[in-house]
């Protein structure tokens, strides 16, 4: 036992001390935070720099004095000389636009907007909204509908999805659950391969450098294999935990930094709604609603359970698959020869991975989802896809017990192949030979 600890320690330290480990560990959260901050920054920016002047040439005469100035956009009337107005746009500083409303706008529904730089979506939406409002009012009037009456009878239904559990009702969130389920399945899929192939490469390296025989004259081959698997597994766990801690910390810092900005943004938007009244900022309002909604939805997700099940299933799945990777590593002399043995490892993972997008996410409590999350070879991905949607505790316990049984079986099998494989130099192994090795005594 003491010797296995020594091996784990070496495998762990030799990897954690590498510069590449530190680099990846610190860069990934920074990268994630960077993307997060960039999104928020860009969203905020698009609200700030909207102040624009729109010169309007109204050939239809329908819109005179009906375009309302907002805090962002000022509508000015222009002369009928289109060429002169275009020149003015070119010469003026700031965001100026030329809006040309043709005479047949009520039938063609087409207008043109000229500018030095293409108008932002905010400006475009604002203009089309106002134009549509005016046209709609005209149509209502023509049909004899009173707008005020119409709006007063506009019904609104808000649906709030709740889940019934034994602890009572709680808010459920299909959207956020889906997003998290998808990211988890990608993450596990990538990580199982990433760390599994590290085990394989480590074994090939030991075999190639011939140190393996020196070591197994001191420890049992199984101890060496398990030491390597556990050591690299701990490297993976360390990396995840550091990622979670660093991301949360950075998220906190970024959050307080951005809080001021986003508060101001919300204030501005509210302000704008007051100024613009009903139609003016409908779009902006609904965008803000989205951000709010996402935050709200994320709030409903049980992150603690997800992180714990993720770590458990990652480690369990890793143990199961890395044993197979270890067996492959012991059977070959170089990485290029591993191809022929990789198929049985890749197939179940790829299969679940693909299914998780198509079937599992849409039907997380169906029969297929249930069985895939029970079979040890597929459960590390399948169960993690299901967990954000809420899975009964007994299913998790049963599936995890099966996973533990599964990795005990694969490590035992891999161990039998490994002990023979590592001493076979320069011999190309076939599946038939692996079976033979497996049967050797002692």
């Amino acid at each position, binding site marked *: 036992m003491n*010797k296995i600890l020594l091996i784990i320690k070496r495998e762990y330290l030799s990897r954690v001390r590498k510069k590449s480990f530190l680099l990846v560990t610190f860069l990934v959260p920074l990268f994630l935070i960077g993307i997060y901050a960039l999104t928020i920054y860009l969203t905020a920016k698009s609200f700030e720099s909207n102040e624009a002047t729109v010169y309007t040439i109204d050939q239809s005469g329908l819109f005179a004095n009906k375009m309302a100035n907002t805090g962002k956009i000022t509508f000015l009337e222009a002369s009928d000389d289109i060429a002169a107005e275009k020149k003015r746009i070119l010469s003026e500083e700031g965001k100026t636009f030329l809006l040309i409303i043709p005479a047949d706008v009520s039938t063609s529904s087409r207008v043109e907007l000229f500018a030095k730089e293409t108008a932002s979506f905010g400006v475009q939406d604002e203009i089309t909204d106002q134009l549509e409002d005016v046209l709609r009012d005209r149509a209502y009037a023509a049909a004899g509908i009173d707008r005020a009456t119409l709006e007063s009878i506009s019904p609104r239904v808000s649906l709030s999805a709740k889940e019934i559990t034994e602890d009572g009702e709680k808010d459920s969130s299909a959207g956020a659950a889906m997003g998290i389920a998808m990211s988890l399945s990608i993450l596990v899929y990538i990580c199982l391969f990433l760390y599994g192939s590290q085990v394989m490469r480590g074994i090939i390296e030991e075999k190639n450098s011939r140190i393996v025989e*020196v070591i197994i*004259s*001191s420890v049992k081959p199984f101890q060496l294999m398990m030491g390597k698997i556990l050591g690299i597994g701990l490297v993976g766990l360390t990396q995840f935990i550091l990622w979670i801690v660093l991301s949360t910390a950075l998220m906190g810092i970024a959050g307080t930094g951005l809080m001021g900005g986003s508060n101001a943004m919300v204030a501005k938007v509210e302000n704008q709604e007051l100024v613009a009244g009903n139609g003016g900022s409908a779009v902006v309002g609904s965008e803000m609603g989205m951000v709010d909604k996402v935050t709200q939805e994320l709030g409903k997700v049980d992150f603690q359970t997800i992180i714990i099940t993720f770590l458990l299933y990652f480690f369990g799945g890793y143990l199961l698959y890395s044993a197979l990777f270890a067996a492959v590593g012991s059977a070959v002399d170089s990485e290029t020869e591993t191809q022929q043995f990789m198929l049985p490892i890749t197939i179940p993972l790829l299969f679940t991975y693909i299914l998780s997008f198509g079937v599992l996410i849409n039907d997380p409590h169906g029969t297929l989802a249930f069985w895939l999350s029970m079979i040890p070879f597929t459960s590390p991905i399948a169960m993690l896809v299901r967990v954000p949607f809420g899975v009964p505790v007994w299913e998790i316990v049963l599936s995890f017990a099966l996973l533990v049984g599964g990795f005990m079986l694969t490590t035992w099998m891999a161990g039998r192949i490994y002990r023979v494989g590592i*001493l076979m130099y320069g011999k190309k192994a076939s599946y038939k030979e692996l079976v033979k090795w497996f049967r050797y005594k*002692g």
Partner: protein
Amino acid sequence: MLEIRNIVKQYANHRALDDVSTRVEQGSIFGLLGPNGAGKTSLIRIINQITAPDGGEIYFDGERLNPNHIGRIGYLPEERGLYKKMEIGEQMLYLAQLKGLSKTEAIDRIKHWFEKMEMQSWWHKKVEDLSKGMQQKVQFVATVVHQPDLIILDEPFTGFDPVNVNIIKEEILALNRNGATIIFSTHRMESVEELCDSIVLINKSKKILDGKVKEIKNTYRTNTYRLEYLHQEKQLTDVAGLFDITSREITGDNTTLTLQIASGMTINDVLAYLIPLVQIHELKEVIPSIHDIFVQHVTAKLKYS
């Protein structure tokens, strides 16, 4: 020290060891000899408990071989290697600890050996930064750093450069004088012949013979001598009942004969006959080398089978 009894090792289509038994005496230098593929490495791996035999057993100091003995054995495999990217000192420490030394003890021993082999400055170097010869020294230290009672060296002198071979030979002999038992395994029989007290010869998975080198050679003496004398006009010929001449070489003024003495006669009888006839320069008994004995054995077997 080591009692090997009826070891059988079976691989799928091939029997690597077939009922091999021998003894390694405490404090001796023992040669495990045989051509490539004879089963030497299989036997060594069984002694090192890397693989288990399919039949037979091994006793280490009277006890049945068990994992407690691992720390008392030092093994230099034929296929040598170290972690390329790990620092030498750390690597030594790791290997010594795997053999069961405590950390402080391991550090002391490593420092002692590094001083002895003049490698003090290598502690923080990586294996890939060392020359081949330096790596060999490191590998040797790794084999003996835990002061094993039994040192097993598989093809010890192949791959070492001549300077290192001498350094390492000296160190091995010193360890042997201090009580360690040494097993040399090699297919180059002549390279260890003069070092070994006893040997076992194996060929095609079977033991051919074993025992003390001196005794083996005695039993394989053929009463053959090489005689060099000053060339004279009268040629010596076979003398019935005394000796046969099996070969004759003439170089310059000298003639060299190989004489097979007839049974019942001794070299003194031959000399008594020769001294009046020729002027003798040199006389030497032709003692078969282990290699000759091996060849003789294998060909004899072939004839009878």
